[in-house]
């Protein structure tokens, strides 16, 4: 299990290192243009990476069982924080998502995601006996998913909200919830999410332009168009590290949600695929950690965290390549991300701790789970 911990650590570390280089390349022109300094954004990002790695190491040393005790209090607290955000957060790009504490601002949704995964993992372990019962078990879990995801959606942060529901359902599915319950609820959620997405102006716009573009064979919007030009310019081998031309203000926020386009331009098809493989390795390593975790809480927590990172990576790349409508989600470890990078590092720290913990206890526990949860 130690090997998995090392793999996960270095995988994340390499991606963050690559992120530093690409952010430097993608943000320099913008920084120069906006702040008179090539390194303005890079310096911020560098600081976040350093703090992130510190957090990663710190949290990998904290025994993950501790979270069991605080999960309920934490989820109630975050619920209030999200409610607070709804009223006090300043509007950025039509969405009140941020809380500013003066010295740093963060998206409560980022913490809520982690806390929800922890709490769902706790509940799945606690309620494993009554899970098949809709009212007693499933509904109890669904309640928190709906509360947290609902508040995130209400910010409105449709993409984060939808992914939160998606990751939660994955967790419930793997955690042994009844398939029929999941399907019925998923259908309900889908209809509800659809209604929500179409009522909120900016997400409706994004979806409609995406559908329109898909029908007419064009590209959805300027960002996606520029992202495709960047990726296409890269060809097989790329234009070389630091030689991106699309980052010369052509691709808006090239260092943020669309950083994959710059990465693809500089590293080409081969580089892009290698980066995707890094995420897949992280995913597989995470799944193995989950499989070998010493208790069900550890398993589900590891799975939830792994799933979250993987889904975010997938959606971000899918957006940059124009496969799905534009969302405001960062590319894990690589994007100029601010605080979401720090929470991501905390999650990975927890994942590594789970890997270490299971390595310490060499007792096979897989059979137990198979017995208690029939397929």
């Amino acid at each position: 299990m130690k090997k998995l911990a090392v793999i996960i650590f270095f995988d994340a570390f390499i991606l963050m290192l690559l992120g530093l280089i690409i952010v430097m390349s993608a943000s320099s022109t913008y920084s120069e243009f906006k702040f008179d300094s090539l390194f303005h954004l890079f310096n911020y990002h560098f600081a976040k990476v350093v703090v992130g790695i510190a957090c990663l190491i710190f949290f990998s040393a904290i025994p993950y069982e501790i979270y069991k005790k605080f999960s309920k209090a934490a989820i109630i607290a975050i619920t209030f924080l999200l409610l607070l955000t709804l009223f006090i957060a300043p509007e950025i790009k039509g969405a009140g998502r941020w809380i500013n504490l003066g010295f740093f601002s963060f998206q409560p949704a980022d913490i809520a995601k982690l806390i929800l995964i922890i709490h769902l993992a706790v509940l799945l372990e606690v309620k494993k006996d009554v899970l098949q019962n809709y009212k007693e078990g499933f509904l109890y879990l669904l309640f928190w998913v709906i509360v947290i995801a609902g508040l995130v959606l209400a910010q409105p942060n449709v993409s984060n909200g939808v992914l939160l529901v998606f990751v939660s359902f994955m967790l419930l599915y793997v955690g042994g919830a009844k398939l029929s319950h999941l399907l019925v609820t998923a259908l309900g959620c889908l209809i509800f999410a659809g209604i929500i997405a179409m009522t909120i102006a900016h997400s409706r716009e994004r979806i409609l332009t995406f559908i329109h573009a898909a029908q007419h064979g064009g590209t959805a919007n300027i960002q996606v168009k520029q992202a495709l030009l960047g990726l296409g310019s890269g060809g097989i081998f790329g234009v070389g590290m630091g030689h991106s031309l699309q980052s010369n203000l052509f691709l808006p926020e090239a260092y943020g949600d669309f950083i994959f386009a710059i990465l693809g331009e500089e590293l080409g098809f081969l580089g892009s695929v290698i980066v995707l493989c890094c995420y897949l390795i992280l995913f597989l390593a995470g799944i193995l950690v989950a499989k070998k975790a010493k208790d069900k809480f550890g398993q589900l927590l590891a799975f939830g965290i792994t799933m979250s990172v993987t889904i975010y990576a997938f959606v971000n790349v899918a957006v940059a390549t124009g496969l799905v409508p534009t969302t405001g989600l960062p590319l894990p470890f690589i994007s100029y991300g601010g605080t979401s990078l720090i929470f991501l590092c905390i999650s990975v720290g927890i994942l590594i701790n789970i890997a270490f913990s299971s390595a310490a206890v060499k007792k096979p526990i897989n059979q137990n789970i198979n017995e208690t949860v029939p397929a």
Partner: protein
Amino acid sequence: MNNSRAIWIIIFVFIAFATLVARLFDIQIIRSEELKYYAKRQQTIVEKIRADRGLIYDRNNVLLAYNRNDVSFFLDLRMVSNKNKIKIAKKFSSVFGETIRHYEDLMDASGKTICIEKKAPSEKSNLLKNFKVAGLFHREDPTRVYYYKDLASYVLGYVGSDYHGVDGVSKYYDNVLSGQDGSMVVLRDAVGDMITVEEKETKPAVPGISLVLTIDKNYQQILEEELNEGVKKYGGKSAAGIIMDPNNGEILALANSGGFNPNKYWSYSDTARRDRAITDTYEPGSTFKSFSMAALLDKNLVNENDEVFAENGKYKFENVFITDAHKSGWLSARQVIEESSNIGMSKLTQKIDDDTFYKYLRAFGFGNYTSIDLPGEVSGMLRKPNVWTPVSKAFLSFGYGLSVTPIQIATAYCALVNGGILYQPQVVKKEIKRDGTIVEQDNPIQVRRVISAATSARIRQLLIDVVKEGTGTEASLENITIGGKTGTSQKLIDGHYSKEFYNSSFVGFFPAENPKIVCLILVNSPTVGRYGGLVAAPIFKNVAERIISMNPGNFENYQSPNQPEGQDFKIVNAGNTNNKPALSQDKELSNTINQSNNVDIKSGLMPDLSNYSLREAISVISRLGLKCKINGSGKVVSQSITPGISIHKGALCVVVCKEPDLVGASVY
């Protein structure tokens, strides 16, 4: 954890990532070329490299106009922080000497981009080479420099803000001077700022061709100084002057009083910038009598000694009074010109019929463009005989009832004194590349023969007498013979001839026996002296004196008075740069001149002499060893020995000649 469910999820994730890889394959490999094309199109712009404009030299290779590599500095205010604004103001202030406040005020402007320093000379802009601030950029902004400022400004013209010629040769030869702009591919960002230049795809500019003018800088300077001095002295509104080489039509100097500085053309009015020597018409007055006399002499209708009664100064002709300034009784034709008698001239002119007179005047180029290679020329006005009144011819004979430009008079005088050939006036001698190789040699262009060489010689003598003992004595110089004619015409103001305003002119030439210089001086509305002989003649004299004293050797050893016809002619260059329609007779004329040298003497066969000039015919016949008898004058129309027949030496050949018929030659 449910293993089989976990496996489903692993499969699901792998499918998702496989989709991404497939999508990337499509974008980055299959559609790569297409996307690269569009990306490149927005990332690069093709920028013009301005071609260096051709230089302008005078005939002795004195540089008159060149380009200075100035640089203009611009600021994109959106990109400049307040801290940098202070930095920029301080730096620019120290380099250009303006106050810091001056630059701060400039930067307070509301525009997005401002020009902070326009056309900074390179010695200043070099000081700013290493001064780099975001938002500060510069652009090459060359300045056309006319080194001698006002000198020859009307010939040179100037360039406008777009660096294209606006007047003078700058405009007429703009295509030649401009060269071909090059281009370079510039990498830019979305805001349009240059990042770097693609060296491989840069197409260099082809610099413009340089012009060597026929203008002599020294003559030009003399003429300008004397014109301005004359206007000051005689109180005229303006004055124009032209110095030409009569033997090839080259303009040696062309000036208007006042002048303007082409380096600062914008501070002069359109009137001040107008080249009055070619764009303004006037009634020539007595200077025109020479042409009337030339027609009469050429037609053998008048002899220099024929007497005519000048009516003592006042003559009623067809109910109109013609008056003379100098009241005279009987005058010889020579004296009519010497004393400039209007009455005498109008009486003599009655001997020539309207059509012939008109044809001579047209042949001299009146009522028509001279086709000088300068823009804006006007043709003046000469009515056709069918609309003449009974008095038209009489008035035309002393230069009233038509309008001419100074360049027309100067050009026609060249034909009058050079042996009878009208040349097209030109200001450009040759077009050369930067390395000095000649691109185009602008050879003299003969338009037509107007009068015979003999007539020309007779007119020269008459005009020498004018300066010796007639109205032009003010123009005479001690060591050289000057010929010339004065002219004083009342200005036509609101349909009446003014008693107050005159155009006073003098056209002279020297050395009179073999003229190398023809010079016209025209003073508009002088208040002192009025008469051409008293105003323009002294100006001419000063010009002539200074020109001769500059290089006396050029004018001392003149040749015999009987200058052989066509001595200095060069064959017309058919490929001249002029676009104006050439007369059909041009070719004929040049062919004729060609023929006399090309005749096959050795074949022993009689050549066809038709259309040969008298002189050429005699030359050919004597070379063939034949005796010759000539009937008539002008061009050969028939010969007694049929062309193609073998020749017996010593045989007699009778050649019949006729004056060249000018019908249709100049009227179109």
